[in-house]
């Protein structure tokens, strides 16, 4: 068996059917004008020519899941007393994420460190992660707003994927990344891909050159602390933010969540659901005190989490995969890459500091002399 496989385009449905024999296959499907990861079936329209509107994160980390169910019962010995029964069920089928993009797959690596590689691993995430095979499609061209190469990724970056596919004219070159992914090469419809490997590498390299790097020439952005901690900066750059959760919910690396009890009569579930640091309620305490009451502080925390706090904890890894969704789908197109770029630019910092001294509003990209 060769190390590289090849999937002719006309056999893609057969391939998916074969995968679906012992797993639920989530693939990017066209729905109206948008692309979503859906359990693939014959009636759905596969769409691989652009990244899905939402990343496949919900497959492994669902937007809402039951942590456990509880039920109050009358104690048999004393009917005045109620006892409680808890039931946690972490049953997960085998799953395949087909057609994720390298940025999407890299997102799962960001989660792994938090959910699995800790002394209190999350059994729900871990089980799903272990049961899921991630088949990634490398990007042939950048998408609006994306910048993976600037945050340690790339259009054929393999981190997080089990299998990497690269599209050629007639089919897909298939490179296994993990042991789990190697099994793919054994599927019926997969042919030997060795003759196509060079072409695939060429496509990958070409795409890499086309992705913009807003932080160039830096390898990874280095953030100026003084500017980061300057309130006026945030007031200027995120004044337009409407404080919704679109950026976080569409982000392949955002993982903050809420835990709530949702009750029926005498029973109910403890539910874990996505939450967003952009919401006022996120940090609101029962006393009414809110440590991050303004959208500026909340946005600062979002940028901080991705570009400072997470890297501090995890050996410099930036918790942003550069997919560009938060830029494309933001109601007012707040551009996180632009903001980080300001934050790293020492020249700008001088300028911000000077406007701070004068007591005037700082300005972004003004031509005014310092």
């Amino acid at each position: 068996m060769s190390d590289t496989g090849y999937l002719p385009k006309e056999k893609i449905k057969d391939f998916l059917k074969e995968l679906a024999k012992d797993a639920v296959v989530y693939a990017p499907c066209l729905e109206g004008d948008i692309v979503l990861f859906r359990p693939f079936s014959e009636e759905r329209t596969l769409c691989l020519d652009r990244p899905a509107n939402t990343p496949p994160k919900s497959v492994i980390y669902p937007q809402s899941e039951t942590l456990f169910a509880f039920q109050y019962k009358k104690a048999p010995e004393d009917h005045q007393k109620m006892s409680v029964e808890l039931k946690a069920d972490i049953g997960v089928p085998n799953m395949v994420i087909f057609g994720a993009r390298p940025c999407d797959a890299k997102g799962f690596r960001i989660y792994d460190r938090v959910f699995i590689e800790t002394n209190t691993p999350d059994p729900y995430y871990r089980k799903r992660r272990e049961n899921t095979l991630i088949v990634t499609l490398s990007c042939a061209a950048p998408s609006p707003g994306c910048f993976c190469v600037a945050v340690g990724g790339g259009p054929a970056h393999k981190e997080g994927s089990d299998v990497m596919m690269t599209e050629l004219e007639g089919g897909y070159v298939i490179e296994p990344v993990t042991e789990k992914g190697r099994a793919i090469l054994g599927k019926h419809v997969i042919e030997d891909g060795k003759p196509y490997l060079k072409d695939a590498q060429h496509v990958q390299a070409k795409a890499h050159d086309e992705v913009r790097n807003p932080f160039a020439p830096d390898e990874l952005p280095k953030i100026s602390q003084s500017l980061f901690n300057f309130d006026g900066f945030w007031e200027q750059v995120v004044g337009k933010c409407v404080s919704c959760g679109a950026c976080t919910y569409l982000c392949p690396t955002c993982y903050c969540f809420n835990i709530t009890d949702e009750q029926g009569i005498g029973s109910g579930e403890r539910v874990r659901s996505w939450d967003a640091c952009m919401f006022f309620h996120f940090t609101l305490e029962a006393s009414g005190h809110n440590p991050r009451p303004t959208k500026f502080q909340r946005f600062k925390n979002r940028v901080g989490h991705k570009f400072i706090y997470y890297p501090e904890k995890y050996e410099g890894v930036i918790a942003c995969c550069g997919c560009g969704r938060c830029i494309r789908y933001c109601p007012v197109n707040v551009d996180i890459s632009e903001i980080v770029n300001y934050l790293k630019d020492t020249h700008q910092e001088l300028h911000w500091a000077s406007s701070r001294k004068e007591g005037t509003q700082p300005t972004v990209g003004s031509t005014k002399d310092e």
Partner: protein
Amino acid sequence: MSNIKNPYLPELATVLRVIEETPNIKSYHVVFNDPELMKSFRFEPGQVGQLSVFGVGESTFVINSPPTRMEYLQFSVMKAGEVTAAIHNLYPGDQVGIRAPLGNWFPYEQMKGRNILFIGGGIGLAPLRTLILFMLDNRADYKDITIIYGSRTPPDLCYKDELKEWEERSDVNLILTVDNEYPGWNKRTGFVPTVLKEVAPAPDNTVAITCGPPIMIKFVLEGLAQLKFKDEDIITTLEKRMKCGIGICGRCNIGSKYVCKDGPVFSLAQLKEMPDEV
């Protein structure tokens, strides 16, 4: 796979006793339903637990009984939101869930052989209580123990029985204060930070541990700085909205530190390294 512990699944426990501390604070004595767990359960002074009322939710409270007294765990709850209101409706025999212990604890090892200054306000005495009792149970390890504690009015003082006990002990210097004159109150009046200035404890070989409302903490920290306490010798314990309790869910962070996991106990030296989001 199945034998890894599910960090979200609480242990079931029963309310043993409810004590009305103040008009809006109650203390709960709670024991795990599993007697084996009750025997093997270990925690350190200052660690917190997530207390569940199933159907309403979870909230974080410090375990304010000391690890030296393990007949039950004590939580003190001030009625503020949805969960605390539900806890206030609990009676002895009612079922709750506990996820504990969580977070870090007071560095009591480093405090051995030193003078200890506690400064508390209102419900803020709860996290101090666990350490005070722990130190009293290991009294020989510590030098002078001074406690400055205040509340709005005398009825708002927590742990009244213990306050009385401490007052009578010769090896504890307890200084009580309430904000204003109050019928029948013949001790000090004035805010805690003001009283701190009046008492003016010496910083030599002394660790100050403070907890209370944010505004009190703010002025106590200033006061301690004026008294020349070193940042490393000033310790406080923070409160935040918490959900997971294991440093994942993202709401209790101050910069890269998660109050639920890296805290709740921080020295002023550590706090100064963190963004101002307390």
